């Protein structure tokens, strides 16, 4: 009996050790992964606070020896960042709002209304969803040129209002609401706009938040279309602005360029810190349902 018990105890100890080893390994791997994401951003941060002479030595240090804030005003002056912020804000707010309104109304119509050729309309929207806007940049550009919209806010905003992913997500969410609630509102004599505003939208709050955030982030980060449709510095958005700053100052002024990059990244990092719960879980939930 005893001879049997001993290896059993030893085995348990060994399993316990192995378990602790696995847990330790898990934390090490997690720390490593976080470092892989964090280190490039820390490198950017470090350079933004270094004097030029500290950047152009090898090996350079992580912690600035003589920390300075001078790169930030330098970046702000070497490109019209104030104007970039204004343009990015206008394009993001109007673009996202327009698209959200468009998507909410279409999704409601597709989910609850009966009208002729509804399936066909849905199919058209679904097909539009599948065509990435990048494929159609040349015809878009020509259309904007005919309208005289090159280098204007309309040109920046309007073409991308027709992209359908938000409509699709919202329709799915609206269809999953309990039908009885909507029927009850109808019985009480509520019209469609009233049902949409007081019943459907409040019930769909989480998905609305996620969709809005995704629209805002996508708009803010947009690169190809603003690059093509703008041709003067005063119409550029932040992503285009940082590209030009790199073009002019890169390699010789990394401190200034990194400070400028922080101007571009910061608003998004703030949004993400405040709302990451909605963004991350919203994306995960959307995909698992698919």
């Amino acid at each position, binding site marked *: 009996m005893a001879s049997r018990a001993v290896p059993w105890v030893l085995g348990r100890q060994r399993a316990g050790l192995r378990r602790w080893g696995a847990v330790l390994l898990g934390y090490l791997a997690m720390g490593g*992964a976080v470092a892989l994401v964090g280190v490039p951003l820390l490198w950017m941060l470090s350079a933004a606070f270094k004097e030029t002479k500290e950047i152009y030595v090898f090996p350079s240090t992580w912690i600035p020896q003589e920390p300075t804030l001078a790169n930030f005003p330098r970046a702000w002056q070497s490109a019209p960042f104030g104007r970039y912020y204004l343009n990015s804000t206008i394009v993001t707010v109007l673009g996202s709002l327009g698209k959200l309104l468009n998507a909410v109304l279409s999704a409601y119509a*597709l989910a609850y209304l009966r009208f002729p050729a509804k399936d066909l309309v849905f199919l058209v929207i679904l097909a539009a969803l599948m065509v990435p806007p990048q494929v159609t940049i040349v015809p878009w550009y020509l259309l904007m040129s005919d309208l005289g919209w090159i280098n204007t806010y309309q040109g920046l905003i309007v073409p991308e209002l027709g992209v359908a992913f938000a409509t699709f997500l919202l329709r799915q969410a609206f269809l999953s609401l309990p039908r009885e609630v909507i029927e009850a509102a109808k019985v009480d004599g509520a019209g469609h706009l009233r049902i949409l505003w007081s019943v459907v939208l409040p019930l769909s709050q989480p998905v609305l938040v996620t969709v809005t955030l995704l629209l805002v982030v996508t708009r803010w980060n947009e690169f190809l279309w603003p690059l093509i449709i703008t041709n003067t510095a005063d119409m550029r958005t932040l992503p285009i602005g940082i590209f030009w700053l790199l073009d002019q100052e890169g390699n010789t002024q990394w401190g200034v360029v990194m400070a400028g990059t922080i101007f571009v990244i910061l608003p998004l990092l703030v949004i993400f810190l405040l709302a990451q719960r909605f963004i991350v879980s919203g994306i995960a939930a959307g995909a698992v349902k698919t």
Partner: protein
Amino acid sequence: MGAVWGHGGAESGVSVVFVFWPLVYNAYLSLVEWDFIAPVKVFVGLENYREALRDPLFHQVLGNSLVFTVGTVAGTLVLGLLGALLLNQPLVLRQAARSVLFAPYILPGAAVAVVWVYIFDPTYGLIRLLLHPVGLASPNWLRDPRWAMLALILVYIWKHVGYTLVIFLAGLQAIPRDLYEAALIDGAGAWARFRFVTLPGLSPITFFLVVTGILSSFQAFDLIHVMTRGGPVNATNTLLYHLYEEGFVAFHAGRAGVVAVILFLLLLLVTVVQVRYGERRVHYA
């Protein structure tokens, strides 16, 4: 009420103007010779297509796109799955780690690319700093045709792996617990549980991620434009970048039309495969 009623129609109207009409127009442009300025577009039939098929640059662009897509999809899938398996363990702070790993996905590609240009700087960059203590020299990442594509793929993976991770993690959490318990009772070891419960349980999600990964890799532009502009000597010139160059740098409307049509057909093919096989081939847990 009329407003809502008409809106479904309006949206599909918008779609027609901004999505379908441009597709037809792309096809039309691919059949003409035009420099965006001349008053007349000269109809040349399929000549632009013949030219593209003979052009070694176009072959290189197709090859680059293939390498970029395979590299980024495989990289994000493998690393994303490993990360998700890790964060599916009961580790303290794993929610925070998930958020940190996801963050690059929402950052502007242009800004991310600028930071990486500095990191890849062969003289003052971070990679040289990290390689120095082990006695390795840093390659001239973005100016060397042998390294530029790899550098681009690495940055793309860095930016997108958080997305795959979050979705794999949601997929893992959707696998019913009792499947694992049943496997344990049957005496399945860790590997057997992974192989016969986890992987089949993740197959619909994996399929979804492969398809969306291919679609989004074909749409990569900001990283390429900021880091390499398709160079050096076209080593990172992909289909979408080539489309941009033909259209807005070289002003060959016809050639841009050809690239747009081919890019569209490839994307359509991937989407059709998704719709056709997404439901049937894949096991739903």
